[in-house]
């Protein structure tokens, strides 16, 4: 569903050019669970931002569901983001003034759903993360893990086909992290494509596919492994 070809992302600030991504190629299929790892500053967040249409790459082509999203208007990009993409951030990024219900409501508002539809979707999403009883609470009244679950509910409420998570467990203890990971695996099992950036190798291995970003380019561990195993089996067959 996602296909990036020769993506390049250059940040220019005060005469300094930073290549956040270069010659970045990646295809992600429907239903995959991709874990992205890589050293700090290698371009993981940049990749997610481009994938989620928050930023436009300097060059290269990016197709989402077969549609090139490179030169779309802000309105159209916002709409795609709203309908197809769900975001989960390391810092949760809940709105402190809005209660849980209203937080989950935000993307649905921009979707233009009716009140009744929204209510149904919000309740569904909160139920899925086990927080339906906390609808009227403010984020500050929840624990970090609960906040992240609200963020997941918010990302899921509009039933996106594509979930982007930037270190969703970075601020959580390992027990909480396991819970959140479990939740993501369940979601993936229901058919949502997930791309997750993480520093935690334990979590990364639980994903079906692992890619590593090094210096702005992908090295797809699974694919390499795949190729290696293929070669090995070929050799074995030959043998």
């Amino acid at each position, binding site marked *: 569903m996602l296909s990036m070809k020769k993506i390049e992302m250059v940040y220019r600030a005060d005469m300094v050019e930073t290549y956040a991504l270069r010659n970045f190629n990646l295809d992600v299929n429907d239903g995959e669970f991709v874990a992205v790892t890589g050293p700090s500053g290698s371009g993981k*967040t940049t990749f997610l*931002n481009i994938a*989620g249409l*928050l*930023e436009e790459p300097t060059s290269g082509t990016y197709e989402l569901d077969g549609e090139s999203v490179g030169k779309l208007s*802000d*309105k159209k*990009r*916002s*709409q795609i*983001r*709203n*309908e197809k*993409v769900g*975001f989960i*951030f*390391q*810092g949760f*990024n809940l*709105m402190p*003034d*809005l209660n849980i219900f209203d937080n989950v409501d*935000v*993307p649905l*508002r*921009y*979707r*233009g759903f009716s009140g009744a539809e929204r209510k149904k979707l919000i309740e569904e999403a909160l139920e899925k993360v086990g927080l339906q009883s906390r609808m009227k609470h403010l984020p500050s009244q929840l624990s970090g893990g609960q906040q992240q679950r609200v963020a997941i509910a*918010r990302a899921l409420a*509009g039933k996106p086909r594509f979930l982007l998570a*930037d270190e969703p467990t*970075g*601020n959580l203890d390992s027990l909480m992290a396991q819970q959140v990971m479990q939740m993501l695996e369940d979601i993936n099992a229901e058919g949502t494509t997930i791309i997750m950036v993480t520093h935690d190798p334990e979590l990364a291995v639980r994903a079906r596919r692992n890619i590593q970003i090094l210096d702005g380019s992908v090295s797809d561990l699974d694919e390499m492994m795949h190729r290696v195993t293929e070669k090995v089996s070929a050799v074995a067959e030959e043998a």
Partner: protein
Amino acid sequence: MFAYYLRLAWQSIKRNIIISSLMVLALALGVGSFMITMTVYYYASSDPIPEKSDRLLAIQLDAGDIESDYEVESSKDLWASLTYLDANNLMEEDLPVVDKTLHYRFGTLVLPEDKDIDYFGAEVRATTRSFFSMFDIDFIYGGSWSEADDEGKNVIVINEEINDKLFSGEDSVGQTLKTNDGNFKIVGVIKTWDIAMPYFEPYPHIGHEFAEVYAPINTFINKEPFSFNGSMNCWKPFDRSNHDAFLQAECAWVGFWVELASKDDKPQLIESLNNYTANQKTLGRFQRPTNNFATDVNGWLKQHEVAEGPVQLMQSMSFLFLLVCLINTIGLLAAKFIGKSTDVSVRRALGASKSDIFKQNLIEVSLIGFVGGLLGLLFAVVGLRWVRELFGDSLERFSTLDPTLIIMGVVVAILASILSGIYPSWRAASAPPAANLKTQ
């Protein structure tokens, strides 16, 4: 979506309730003070008789002293009134006009027949019957006096106030008004004027009172001792003990106005005036260059700078004050929206487009503006009372807000707040969506 934005706006205002109320207050003060000075300016400069202000013209002639070597570049440089001799002559002269009138004013003492009412002073405008129709003065009862009365009969038109005082507001036409200048038969009662000042005065200014009663000029012109209120300027000696000599004297003190059929007739009018002064030259008068002017109502008000001086000063000061309030608001809003930038980025990530965010912000700003505008209007109403007290009676007629001004006030407030909100709203909306999502 509008209701949603309104709710968000309200929430955001509530979160920063102190800052938001201060913003509202600042905006209200700015708008309020601007409204006050605008009101004064509006009354001082608005056309008092829009239907025909371009056809009503004040006449000025340069009858001055040959020895005075003043230069006349515009009508400003001449006395604003005529000599009685010229005004009277022009009444007889065949001018290309529909109507004409001359007038001056003086004080009299009204002696009410009802002993419970004290004597009181009143100002009389001595004029002709055409005065009322020329200046569109509305009558409650009766009307102007007849042509025959113009010859010098003891008839009088009184204003609403005196009619209320002496006749408890009832139709007093046919009754007698006793004064120490004689007894007069009341022929009409005029409505209180809702204009700023008697603009037809030779030297109109804010705070000028309207005369209370009106009577034929010929009833008084030969009266001795003669009384007169206003500005009189003489440039040739004459025998001051002789009233006829005074009426013939080179003293400017009589106002003279004409009404044209069409404003295009002005060149013909000037030509007739020039003919008149040319004839007078042969009699030894008008020895100076020909400088005759006919100035329409708005030109007259401008010539006398009625909307200048303190009015202008306060207007420019209050405008600058409003400007400071607006800049202050822009600064506060910018700061406020920058404070919200994470919020904006999250919304953007969740699918809000630039214009969604812009709308959301603008609605918040407009809400503040709307409340500020309403409060400003309230300030203006209270402030106008205060200003009226400061200036005493001279601003009596300036202290009400008419609907035009109220609408203007609300428009100014909302426009001001939106203007000050556009930039911060746009700034906040156009921040790159990913910028504030990284954990700091």
